[in-house]
């Protein structure tokens, strides 16, 4: 019939796809062979380096290839003592490659490391630019821990503006508080002071009440409680809050677990709260049966006291 579209069947499409995969595979094996051979001879030729880049762009997780590149970079650095423009261009190309690779796999350890390694050897590395890139990157994906780590490394180079970093972390948490990276980042930023402890407690409480089943905020709470500036007044307040929350969510294990952290801390010099701890652990035994043995041990310890 005239004017009708002819459409490939799924089988035809799959065949095409498989054919393309085969092509890629052949090229990949050939490339690997060439690179390994030229590496063995302890020299490098630009052709192998170009092939290496192509392979990495497809799969940035081959450490051997990154190591090959590092060897070449070291050779270039050694050969070029007067920090010429040519060297700068060469290093810029390495940086561009890591960008390409991170597009292919944003969580490739090799690419992130190579980028930092090259920049650390770059005669005029622009760390501010790296910092801005990190901010942009984390706006698009706030849970990439590689980028959070990288941000910390970069900050060591340019110096930290504490207030800005805290605000940045808060903004990321506001987008989605199920974010171990950002909570952890907060804990590395500051030694908790008497001034800010209340703010941090409020922030974490908001998360706990919004979704008590989300474990990330509970871990941050645990870190907060390990800090000496958290007073017994703070802890008693928090205990009240947890009891309120427990009334609404009696089956949530995290509330009970956190309650036990608090009770243990409070018990140390007040000697009370023992019965409450026993009750909490017994309930935990029931609702978190996977860790029953752990709670039994805690109960035994309590009985010994």
């Amino acid at each position, binding site marked *: 019939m005239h004017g009708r579209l*002819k459409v*490939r069947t799924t089988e*035809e499409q799959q065949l095409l796809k498989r054919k393309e995969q085969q092509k890629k595979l052949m090229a990949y094996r050939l490339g690997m062979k060439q690179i390994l051979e030229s590496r063995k001879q302890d020299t490098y030729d630009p052709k192998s380096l170009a092939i290496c880049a192509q392979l990495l762009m497809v799969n940035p997780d081959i450490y051997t290839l990154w190591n090959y590149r590092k060897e070449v970079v070291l050779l270039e650095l050694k050969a070029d003592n007067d920090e010429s423009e040519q060297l700068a261009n060469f290093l810029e190309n390495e940086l561009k490659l890591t960008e390409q690779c991170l597009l292919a796999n944003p969580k490739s350890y090799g690419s992130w490391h190579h980028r930092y390694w090259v920049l650390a050897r770059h005669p005029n590395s622009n760390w501010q630019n790296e910092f801005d890139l990190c901010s942009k990157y984390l706006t698009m994906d706030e849970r990439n821990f590689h980028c959070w780590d990288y941000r910390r490394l970069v900050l060591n180079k340019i110096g930290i503006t504490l207030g800005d970093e805290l605000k940045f972390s808060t903004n990321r948490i506001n987008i*989605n508080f199920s974010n171990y990276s950002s909570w952890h980042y907060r804990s590395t930023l500051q030694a908790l002071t008497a001034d800010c402890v209340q703010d941090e407690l409020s922030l974490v409480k*908001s998360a706990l*009440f*919004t979704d008590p089943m989300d474990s990330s905020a509970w871990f941050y709470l645990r870190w907060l409680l390990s800090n000496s500036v958290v007073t017994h007044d703070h802890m008693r307040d928090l205990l009240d809050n947890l009891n309120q929350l427990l009334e609404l969510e009696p089956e949530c294990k995290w509330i009970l677990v956190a309650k036990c952290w608090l009770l243990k801390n409070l018990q140390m010099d007040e000697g009370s709260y023992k019965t409450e701890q026993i009750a909490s652990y017994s309930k935990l035994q029931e609702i978190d049966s996977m860790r029953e043995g752990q709670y039994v041990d805690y109960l035994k310890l309590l009985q010994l006291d």
Partner: protein
Amino acid sequence: MEYDLPSDFDIIVVGTGMVESIVSAAASRIGKRVLHIDSNSYYGGLWASFNLDSISKIPEGNRSQPVVENKENEIVYPVGNDVFDLRIHSQKWHIPESNPEKDVDESDSAVAQEEHEWTQEKLLKISRKFNIDLAPKLHFAKGDFVELLISSNIARYSEFRSVSRILTWLNGSLEIVPCSRSDVFSSNRVSVIEKRMLMKLLTSCVDGDENEFKGYEGKTFQSYLKDRKLTENLIHYVLYAIAMCTDDTLCLEGVEKTKRFLGSLGRFGKTPFLYSMYGSGEITQAFCRLSAVFGGIYALNQSLNGFIYDNDNTFKGIICGKQRINATHLVMSLEKLPKEIVDFSTTEYISRAIFITDKSILEDEREHLTLLLFPPVDRKAACVVLELGSLTGTCPKGLHIVHVFTKQTVNPEDDLKHCVEKLFCKREGESNSSPSILWSFYFSAPNTFSQKLECEKLLNTYVCPGPDLDLDYDPAIERAKEIFERIYSNAEFLPRAPDPEEIIIEGEDNNNIINETEERAEVPADQGDVSSELAHEDDT
């Protein structure tokens, strides 16, 4: 007419509104010969978008009508009626026509200030930067419309932007409605206990079993919320904004509406809603494009001179210009229905207002796409307010287009007054923080969705309703599907359209693929192991 259209079709669709366009695409998609025509020179009919210049010229009513002609064995009905037209209430400028002559001696700062003053002349100069919807629509990110776009592959013809905040009017001011998990977390308007209560309620509306709502069958949603011991604020958020209900909405309906809202959260952006870039009028055109890709023939600006029926009132064809075009089925928009056989009159109207304003109703560091659900007050129905900025491609930078609409009780101006007065400056030049209205357009549009649109007098003829009050296109899709299934009862409704790479271009030899794959068989088998190295594993 300089040239003739083909004269024989399976189906003729008259009018390019939403329902008509979906039917047209669906018929064309299964290989039917479709003629899709419109007497207007633009797509969309009552669902169209206009630039600033052309919206001031939209025809309000239908032109004079010729009478029914009885020929031998055939009856020719004239096209169109005036029952279902827009009724324009007022269209006004609230800024000067042009700047008065500038004094040459004026200081630089005065000139700079002058440049920020909008004039009619300035706005009309950039008239094409406006896309003003007659029937603005939002799309639930997981609603029927989005799912249809995806399943039919029409999504490739359209672009969307997500609504970035949802507001309500509470205790005399605008407030952001905490609707997603992250909103609830970061809101400083609700206490921690309220956070838990709200989250708990929202989860139980989505996941709650039947027992959760037992005993509320005849009771209102409001009473359910009160029994859940929610605070006044929370009840307001859930009842008027999230569920978009009134005090009288029944519990189960409220739960359904809450589900519709929450079910679309977390798919695209912070809210459940998407808006079509460059205006809602784009959407009808996306369906028309699909229809054309599959062979549908399009002709706008046609003078339609009659629908031809035989003596048994079976559809035979249309008269387009001087040409007679035959077809088996006729699908048309309500306003094209012959006056003589319109046996339903419209009683329901939608009161609509459109404004161009100089800033947002709630200013922020960045531009927002805002949905304000203005709650019902003092026996006034709830109003929907949609504020579009330049990022939607519907207005120039620095300005906003605001759509306000509600179910009509009196007339557009009176129905919307209480809401408009609270959001905008009352008088020109009044300096306070609310935005000023530069241009306003009040009109009534018939709401024809609640009517039963069976056209029993005329056979093989199907009538499509105009825009309704639903936020999304769900009712339009449902109606289009109904019409399509009545005409082609065994055919699939809008199956997935192929991507360009799946289409075999004429001249490309399909056998090539088969031949080359046979060669592939010679490649050693052990290569399969290495191929897994090329696959990326996500280490989340």
